[in-house]
């Protein structure tokens, strides 16, 4: 039963990782851009939510109504002002630009707030759970996180497979020059993908902030989990990222059962094993792969 519990908790933790990795996966999948400021942008979203909670007395859930569109606008600005220009210089330039952005955001947050750790308050909902047996209980909040992750990632996957703009996104990813010859303005497609990606970063940031404490610099420590989820699932596959996040989450919680001192190590080992055994990830032939 202890093991069942570990797996169940891992599934739900994995939902959070998948939600967090979604934007990274989408931006890499469509634009071939690795966004090193991904983690910091999610922390920005968490601080944005906190500001609304503090000033308006809203529940963190309600702040999503503002944080999601706000982060989408951040995505548009990021794409137009930074990434479009960087892509014009070289394939490596976006990497350097977002690395710089990551440092700038961390210091900006330190200036505005403080190095103290913060949390988004959700009261008793954060600790409430559904007790199935003595050793197995399912927390409301982790369950909700998993549900949101599934809806968001499968929703994006469905958009890419079915929608007219989703098709245009995949075509642009395959071959931007030929996509232009089909009448697709790749700049608009990139802007749309960045907005979609950052909207998911907004959701992820708020959920991370509700689950655990954050500081201005905690974004980069989460980034490694997002990368691992993306690589395990298969680079560029949104559906794969959902699976990758869950694999990583389960590996960490089961790892904690084996060796409580360092659960994250087991997660890293699973990640390395996937890299060795199946370097293109679990879902290599998926929509965006």
């Amino acid at each position, binding site marked *: 039963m202890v093991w069942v519990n570990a797996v169940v908790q891992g599934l739900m933790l994995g939902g959070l990782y998948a939600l967090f990795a979604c934007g990274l996966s989408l931006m890499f999948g469509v634009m071939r851009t690795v966004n090193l400021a991904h983690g910091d942008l999610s922390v920005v979203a968490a601080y944005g939510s906190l500001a609304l909670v503090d000033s308006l007395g809203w529940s963190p859930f309600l702040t999503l109504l503002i944080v999601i569109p706000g982060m989408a606008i951040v995505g548009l600005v990021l794409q137009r002002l930074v990434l479009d220009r960087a892509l014009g210089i070289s394939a490596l330039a976006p990497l350097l630009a977002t690395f710089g952005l990551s440092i700038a955001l961390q210091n900006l947050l330190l200036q505005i707030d403080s190095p103290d750790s913060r949390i988004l308050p959700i009261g008793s909902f954060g600790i409430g759970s559904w007790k199935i047996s003595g050793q197995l209980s399912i927390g409301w909040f982790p369950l909700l996180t998993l549900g949101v992750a599934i809806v968001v990632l499968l929703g994006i996957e469905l958009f890419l497979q079915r929608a*007219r703009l989703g*098709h*245009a996104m*995949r*075509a642009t*990813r*395959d*071959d931007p*020059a*030929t*996509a*232009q*010859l*089909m*009448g*697709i*303005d*790749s700049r608009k497609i990139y802007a749309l993908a960045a907005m979609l990606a950052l909207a998911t970063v907004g959701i992820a940031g708020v959920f991370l902030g509700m689950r655990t404490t954050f500081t201005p610099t905690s974004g980069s420590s989460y980034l490694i989990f997002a990368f691992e989820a993306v690589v395990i699932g298969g680079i560029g596959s949104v559906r794969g990222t959902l699976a990758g996040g869950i694999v990583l989450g389960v590996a960490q919680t089961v790892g904690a059962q084996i060796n409580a001192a360092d659960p994250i190590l087991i997660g890293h080992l699973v990640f390395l094993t996937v890299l060795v055994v199946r370097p293109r990830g679990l879902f290599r032939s998926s*929509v*965006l*792969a």
Partner: protein
Amino acid sequence: MSSLEVESIDVHYGDFQALWSVDVAVETGGTLAIIGANGAGKSTLLGAIAGSRRLSSGSIRFDGRDISDLPAHARVALGITLVPEGRRLFPSLTVEENLTIGAFRRRKGPWSLNRVYELLPIVANLRQRHANQLSGGEQQAVAIGRALMNNPRLLLLDELSLGLAPVIVQSLYAVLPEVSAEETTVLLVEQDVGQAIAAADRVQCLLEGRVTLEGDANDLDRDSIRAAYFGI
């Protein structure tokens, strides 16, 4: 009235000049073949008309409107569609998705998925396949269908015959009369001179970026074509 008027355009790749004061005019519904050896500038000319190559000087008018400064995607909206050299299908999309991408601009006109499948039955049988699982001839047929989905008024065809067996090339060229019948102007580029002359009503020859010959497809004799093609 001319559908397409290209007036003394120059195109450069860095310091290299690929086109030298090239003029092209095609009547609405007409078919012009551009012939020439490798590196003569044929694909560059099509790229300039489609908007993927920038002009150094000169102008391009389409239905009387100057389109020289329009980006490629905006020219597609006017009905200028290129079937690029080497097909360039989207490999992660299915055949049917490739076709629907062709209709991205939602231009009205005679062509639809069903009409394309009727014209190119070979494509109808492949609709759920991924583009990277097709033979060269199948890919070329899909590329033509994808272009038709935009309901083009000017169809630019770049080396349809490249790397394909003659019998397949013939079957692809056999669809052109039905395309022209829809008042679509066709500009095609070919290395295969015989095929080009058979498909077109006018022919222009490029040599090292300059027009060396122009005339009705029926009037040109082999010797003058040879001279214009090789510059001897």
